[in-house]
Each structure stands twice: as structure tokens, then as C-alpha cells.
């Protein structure tokens, strides 16, 4: 129990008092206290802080990756009419459910969605904090910040222009271009192994049809699912090509499948879908658009 002799009591109660007294000296006489008079003074937040989202309409391709990766189902895609961009689909965020985790920012293939430092979002009405794409729109935000995601230049193929001449495969010094035959079409298309590409640009220069262009693409750290076509089921309806936001699907004619019509003439050949997988962002819209089960994409919900 406590020996309440004069010395020990003084000693043991005075030691904390010395500290609190020093604190009063520091905050009253020598300096200022540690707090800020919110809302008259506010603290500066670091740029990595995750607050309200910002959407760049021009960069966004409407793929919906952000909607899929959100752990709490806070986002949705909204169909809009924009005077410049036409009929587009852009995401909206429900801040009432948002975890502010930042996954949507990380998975976006074109870095169109950012998280700003604005955190004062409270409102009395729950409907008011469901922000649609128009409320999140800020096309100039990307110019104001330092971009963190790494960019690299890669050659991107436009399959409509490619003739299959194989000049790019011969020119590549790293031998990362392989000409793969397209089944039932008869042509072959170049497939670029992106990990080996050094962006030297020789394949772009040598292509006569200008089918290859150097584009800046953002690095993705996520292993995104890849679609595979089941050729038997493909009817050539081109629903997948219309649905793809990244222009990675081309419809090509399959020679030898023309039907003879009643009056003896040859009809049009059937088409099949061809994927250019370097452009694919793994959103799964083709998988959802195909009604004939001819696309296989494991891991993506219908």
C-alpha cells in the first residue's frame, strides 16, 4: 500500500505534475496548442489521400472494370448523351457505400478516375451522396496532379489495315512479334509479347499499311482475365465487337463459308470475331454480350 510519508508522496505526485506543467508552458506561453480551429483553419492533406472521386470523361472508355472490382458494389454504369462524345457509358459512385479503398483508381486502364482530397461529403439525405457521372466530371484533373502509374509505349495493332505481310516480325530486334494464324480466316496476325518489347519502334516504321502505331499505355498490376473464343458457336453477329470499349475485337470474313443463294450467286461469307489481346482491358463486355456462348472468360460474372 502507499507509504504516505511526505517525501514519497510529493515525489510521486509531483513527477506527473511536472510534465503537465511543462505542457501548459509550451502551449500557452511559448507556443500554440496542437489543434487547429476547424472550420476556420484546415489541415493540408497529402496528395495520396483517398477522398471523393473525379472522372475524366475523355479518358474513360466505359469498360466497367471499376464497377467489377469494387468490393462493396458501390458503383454503377450510367448511359449518357454527351454533346461532344455521343452516346457513352460512364460510372457513378454511391458514397454511402464506398470504402474509399482506391481499387477503382488502380484497375482503370486509362487512369480516368482519381481520388481527390475532398472528404467533407456529409449530407442529411442519403440520396444526395450518390454521385452520378456528371457530378463527378472533371476533365482537367489529370493535368493538375503528378501521375503515379507507370506508362510505357507499346505498338498497337489495327487489324483492319493489316495484310499479314510479316515484315514487322522480321524487323523486331527482340523477336517479340510472332505471326499467329487466325483459324478459318487464312491470314495471320502479329502477336506482340509485351514483357519483351523495348518500344524501339522499328515495327511501326516498317509497316507499309500503317497498321501499327506507338501508343502510351498504363501498366496494369492486376492479372486481368482474357477472353477465348469457341469458334463452333460463333455466328458472326458482331455483338462483341460493338460492345468492346477498347476496340480489341475485329470481325473478319471466313472464306469458304459463302452460301449459294437461290439464283446461283454467291452470298456473303460468314464472319468470325478476332481478338487483338494487347488492347484488351479484361472488362468482360464481350462475354456478356455474346448470346451464343462462344466466348469463354473465367472469373467474370454474367
Amino acid at each position, binding site marked *: *500500500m*502507499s507509504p504516505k510519508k511526505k517525501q*514519497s*508522496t510529493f515525489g*510521486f*505526485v509531483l*513527477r*506527473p505534475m*511536472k*510534465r*503537465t506543467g511543462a*505542457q501548459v508552458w509550451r502551449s500557452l506561453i511559448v507556443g500554440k496548442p*496542437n489543434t487547429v480551429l476547424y472550420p476556420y483553419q484546415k489541415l493540408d*492533406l*497529402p496528395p*495520396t*489521400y*483517398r477522398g471523393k472521386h473525379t472522372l475524366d470523361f475523355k479518358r474513360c472508355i466505359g469498360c466497367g472494370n471499376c464497377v467489377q*472490382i469494387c*468490393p462493396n458494389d458501390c458503383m454503377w454504369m450510367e448511359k449518357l448523351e454527351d454533346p461532344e462524345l455521343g452516346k457513352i457509358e460512364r460510372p457513378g459512385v454511391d458514397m454511402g457505400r464506398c*470504402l*474509399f*479503398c*482506391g*481499387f477503382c483508381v*488502380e484497375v482503370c486502364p486509362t487512369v480516368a478516375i482519381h*481520388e481527390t482530397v475532398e472528404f467533407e461529403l456529409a449530407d442529411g439525405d442519403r440520396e444526395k451522396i450518390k454521385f452520378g457521372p456528371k457530378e463527378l466530371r472533371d476533365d482537367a484533373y489529370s493535368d493538375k496532379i503528378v501521375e*503515379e502509374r507507370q506508362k510505357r509505349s507499346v505498338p498497337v495493332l489495327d487489324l483492319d489495315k493489316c495484310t499479314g505481310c510479316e515484315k514487322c516480325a522480321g524487323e523486331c530486334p527482340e523477336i517479340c512479334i510472332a505471326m499467329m494464324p487466325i483459324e478459318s480466316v487464312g491470314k495471320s496476325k502479329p502477336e506482340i509479347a509485351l514483357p519483351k518489347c523495348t518500344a524501339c519502334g522499328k515495327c511501326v516504321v516498317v509497316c507499309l499499311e500503317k497498321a501499327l502505331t506507338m501508343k502510351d499505355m498504363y501498366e496494369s*498490376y*492486376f*492479372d*486481368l*482475365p482474357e477472353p477465348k473464343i469457341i469458334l463452333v458457336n460463333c455466328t458472326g453477329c458482331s455483338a462483341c465487337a460493338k460492345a468492346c470499349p477498347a476496340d480489341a475485337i475485329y470481325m473478319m470474313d471466313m472464306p469458304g463459308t459463302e452460301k449459294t443463294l437461290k439464283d446461283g450467286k454467291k452470298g456473303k461469307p460468314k464472319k468470325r470475331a478476332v481478338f487483338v489481346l494487347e488492347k484488351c482491358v479484361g472488362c468482360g463486355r464481350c462475354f456478356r454480350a455474346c448470346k451464343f456462348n462462344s466466348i469463354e472468360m*473465367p*472469373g467474370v460474372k454474367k
Partner: protein
Amino acid sequence: MWNNMGPQHPMTHGLWNLRIKVDGETIVDAEPEVGYLHRGIEKLCENRTYTQIIPIADRLCYGSSLTWSHLYCMTVEDLMGLEVPPRAEYIRVASIEMQRIASHLMWLAAYAADLGAMIGFIYTMRDREVFIDLLQALTGSRITYNFPRIGGVAHDIPPNFERDSLRACDYMEKKLKEYEDLFDGSKVFMMRNQGVGVFRKEDAMNLGVTGPPLRASGVKYDLRKDMPYSVYPEMDFEPATHPDCDCYARYRVRMDEMYESCKIIRQAVRKMPKGKWRAVAPRNAPAGTGLGRVEDPRGEGMMYVVGDGTDRPYRLKIRSPIFVTVSAAKKMLVGYKVADVVAIMGGLDMCIGEADR
């Protein structure tokens, strides 16, 4: 007659019930009841991809959330057989030790406030802000960070991180001396804590208690030294123990752990190699199992994941240290006064989020 302390109670941190049987002022029997905060996390994880579970693992124990998301990423990396780049390991260790200091400071704040010293609450929360600001600059958020990823960390360290963390460590060591004056130097604090809640070494080992309560009973067992993971083999520190088995020993062990964490942060930040901070993890996990064990600020945390070839886990099992320590409450409480319940249960640092999952 059984008396209920909780579940709605100003003293209990988190949502749990303590039923005690009193004889006058002395406690004769005690029975803790947890489960009021069950959120079904293990079931939630079966419906989400491996990446989407990381923010959920953060919210297991909101007091020290980096530990749990790091543990989850370690477990899945064990399942997938993935190699993490060394820079990512050093960043992880530095941030985990900062999180450990922040968690211990929050424990000290709640403990001091329960005992009546509001000054302890305010000072420790103020000093915790230093580390929370560092982690905010690093990860982007203050409490649930969502920073480790499967294969590394989310992004690189911000500029001036090394300078700021070294300054924070110096500041913390100065403040720890101040806390010694404020708590160890106060006769009233010592009266409330010494000789209270004695928990013998044999009982601690038999009941499976880990973490500071075990080390305060004299057992030198720290997962960072005995089964090292990440880059802890290259760090030079000593696990903190104390020979008395009472509440004062548990307090002292946590204060010493904060000193050691400062040392580890200094070494991690200075030795950080250059390079990549993230490896791309495959989307589908192979069919198999993965196990991860980590030294949480509250004890030993463990996760066990069963993969089945798809991108969602088949089962995720979480072992929480507080669940085990709470069940040891009876041994610690019997024979002491009702007014000691605050000191004893406060000394165990209960974060009910991880006990109830």
C-alpha cells in the same frame, strides 16, 4: 448472483459482455461473452476475389489493420507460391512497426482513460497522430489502409518518407520518457496496477495466450524471433519480457515493445533496397492450402486459406489472439475486487473486431 457488465457499458472497449459473480466486493467467478460484433467475415470472403478481400481483412481489427491485411497477403502468397520483391518487404516491415506503435498508443490511451488519467488519453492520442500522419502520407488513409497487395505493396513510398520516419522515431523516444514520468512516476497508477491480475506462467502457456500477456508472465516467445517471416531475420531487436505477472508487467512490456519498434523502423528505412515494389499475382489460385502466421500487437494471428483453382477462395479461416485471451479472463479476475476489472481487462487490449470476426 450473476451480474452483467455490458454489452452497453462505458468501460468496455468494443461490444462484449462480462458476467461476474460477486461476493461483497470480491469476484468469485467470471464468464466473458463475445459474439455481439459478428459480421460474417469468413463467409463474405468466399464470395469475393482475392484482391477484393484485402479491404475486408483490414476491417478485422481496426486498431491495427495493416497487420491483418499483411497477414492475408502473406497467406495467399504462400498459397500461390509467389515471390515478393525485397523493397516491398522492407516497406511492409516499416509500415507494420509504425502500425504497432500506433496500436500500442491507442491501447495506452484507452487504458489511461479508464483508470481516470485523462491526461494519458490526450497525450497518447496526440503522439499517435504523428504515426497516423506518416501512414497517411504513405498509404492514403488513416485507419483502414488497404495498402499491402498480393505480391507486394500498392505503391512506392512518398518523397521525404525516410526523413520523416526518422524524425518520428526520435520524437517517440523522447515521448516515451515523458510517459514514464506520467505513469511510472505516479504513485496512484502503481497502486492500481501492481499486484493486480496476476497470471501465472503455467496458466498462460496452458490456455494458449500469446502476445504481451504471455511475455509479461516471463515467457520469451515472440513470433518475429522464433518463427521469423518477411525480413525480420535481418533486423536487430530484442523481444520485451517482464518477470512480474501483473497488470504493471503488461503495461511495461508494451512500452518496451514501442522502443524496439522504433529501432526496427530505423533499420528498415535505412536498409531499403531499390527496385520494384510489386509483383503481378496470377488471377486464379492453384488448388491447395496456404498458412500465414504473424505477430499482431495483441498476440499471434494466423490465417489459413484453401484455394480451389478459381479466383475466389474456397475457405478462409482466421485465428484471432483476442478470442483466446478473453477466454483466459476467468483465471485473471477471480479473487480481485470489482474495481480491478477495469485495470485487468484493459491490460489485455481487447479489440473485439478480430475476436468476433
